[in-house]
């Protein structure tokens, strides 16, 4: 963790540097064009929101960034290096982590084990066969630290499937942070969480280490305007508009196409 803080200090100088970039990124599914010609830049330390109506291609875009899908055309660059052909697991090692729209947790395992797995994977401990997992107290300590930061310490021993959905979303986040990513992609982190619990997710996201470049897909405009310093609007697989939250909010075309009924509600909070 000390290393993380040192990293954070060093990052101040390179804050404006582009971490993740796409050039002409396009993906067809047969005749369906899911994502087309996306030129996108995510700066180091960014707090960037990706919004758009259902079916705009947001999740496809995330899948292209993480390597779950291969693009039909175009390229993905991480720190200026072309990673278009790099496999998903390799991209994780390079520092791209994600959370899922629907929880993908190790349901039968304890909360601590859920976080032990990614931390062990990142530290290169996971292939070790002949030493007990419990001997790696460094992995366990870091996993516990993450759980404490996310206020999950009290349920660390519980089976993750026993937790309320909102706290399961936090475990989802803990798994991604345990990978110490340089780029973190959050696919609707508060989706499915009762509004009474959603603040715990938002608090956690706000407390993420500053040097991580965060791209968040979100439908809830409250979340977007509270969290993001920059917003990209996707419509029909293409970038429709990009700017600061204020600019996006004020953009009449965005209001017409996307914000529509939600626009009035978001306006209340501006």
């Amino acid at each position, binding site marked *: 963790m000390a290393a993380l803080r040192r990293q954070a200090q060093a990052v101040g100088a390179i804050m404006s540097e582009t971490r993740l970039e796409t050039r002409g990124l396009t993906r067809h599914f047969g005749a369906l064009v899911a994502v087309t010609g996306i030129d996108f830049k995510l700066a180091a330390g960014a707090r960037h929101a990706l919004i758009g109506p259902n079916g705009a291609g947001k999740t496809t875009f995330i899948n292209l960034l993480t390597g779950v899908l291969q693009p039909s055309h175009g390229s993905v660059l991480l720190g200026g290096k072309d990673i278009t052909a790099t496999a998903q*697991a390799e991209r994780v090692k390079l520092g791209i982590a994600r959370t*899922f729209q629907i929880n993908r*947790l190790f349901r039968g395992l304890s909360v601590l*084990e859920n976080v*032990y797995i990614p931390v062990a994977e990142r530290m290169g*401990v996971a292939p070790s066969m*002949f030493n007990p*997992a419990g001997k790696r107290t460094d992995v*366990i300590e870091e996993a516990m630290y993450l759980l404490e930061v996310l206020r999950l310490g009290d349920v660390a*021993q519980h089976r993750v499937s026993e937790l309320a959905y909102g706290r399961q979303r936090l475990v989802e986040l803990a798994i991604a942070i345990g990978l110490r990513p340089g780029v973190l992609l959050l696919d609707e982190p508060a989706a499915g969480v009762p509004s009474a619990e959603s603040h715990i997710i938002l608090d956690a996201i706000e407390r993420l280490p500053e040097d991580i470049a965060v791209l968040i897909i979100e439908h809830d405009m409250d979340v977007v305007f509270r969290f993001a310093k920059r917003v990209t609007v996707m419509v029909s697989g293409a970038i429709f508009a990009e700017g600061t939250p204020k600019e996006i909010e004020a953009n009449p075309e965005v209001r017409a196409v996307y914000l529509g009924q939600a626009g009035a509600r978001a306006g209340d909070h501006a």
Partner: protein
Amino acid sequence: MSASATSAESTSFAARINHPAARALIERHRLRWWEVLPWIAAIAGYFIFPGYLGFGTELLVAILFALSLDLALGYAGIITLGHAAFFGAGAYTVGMLADHGVWSEPITGLMLAALVAAIVGLLSGLVLLRTRGLTLLMLTICSMALLEQAANMAHDYTGGFDGLPNLPITPIFGVFNFNPLYNNTQYLYALAVLLACFVFVRTLVYSPFGQSLTGIRENLLRMHAVGAPVRRRLIICYTLSAAIAGIAGGLWAQVNAYVNLSSLDLDRAATVLIVLILGGYGRLYGAFVGAVVYLALEHFLARIYPTAWQLGLGILLVFIALFARNGILGLGEALWRRYGGRHKPSAPS
């Protein structure tokens, strides 16, 4: 990170390591008192039931085979109904080498059985483990059927349908003979082999590698997303599991001094699956409990009711499927939690 992060950091390394959840994980691999019981029972059985040592040897082989399946199915979630392929590969390795006068020393024979079964596991795993679920299930049956037919057709080497009887297995350490009438040597030998393999499997499942296998079992897609080389891990696990199944098969051939096609057939593969489900998979000792219950039922029910003993087994399986999905051990654990001692929030994984 702001205020809460600072407060979290102020709690020390020691405090985090002493959290009950951390302690549970740190101490998970330590030997618990009851883990000695099966071995005490096995040694006690040797003295108490000298007339049942043949049965006992059969039981130990069944436990070892089920244990190998537990590693693949219970821990890594590899759904297979073709595990007899590796049992048979091991059995035929021992049988053919001994029958043709190439190699008949038992301990190195088991190592060769493990090696051959591991190679079969590796090669088939490279192909099969691209698939999941029912496709995988069907392909494991197919590859086993292919091996069985190959063994059937290569009559000159395998004895075909008749198999290879009267295998000349040399005494262990050149001293302890396998006597077909008194199974003392066979029993103790099988027990020693089981113990060695059990220590190996137990070490493996409590390692970080074992933890990552449970991760693959619990959520494959998430394991990809945390950067784990999932397919490589599955292939390694499958190969190791195949090697242990091969040892079980080789052991079976040695203690019976014969090998035949039954070592490779669907009946054997299905039986080991039933044994594991009966006992409870993904918990190491399910293999022990399942094998004891299955073989005891087979042995004693078949005496009382020779024509329809499987009816009793069937009723038990229906009961397990309806009320105890995690097998006898899972049922015991649930009852213990409900009526017994302290509340244990997280189950062993």
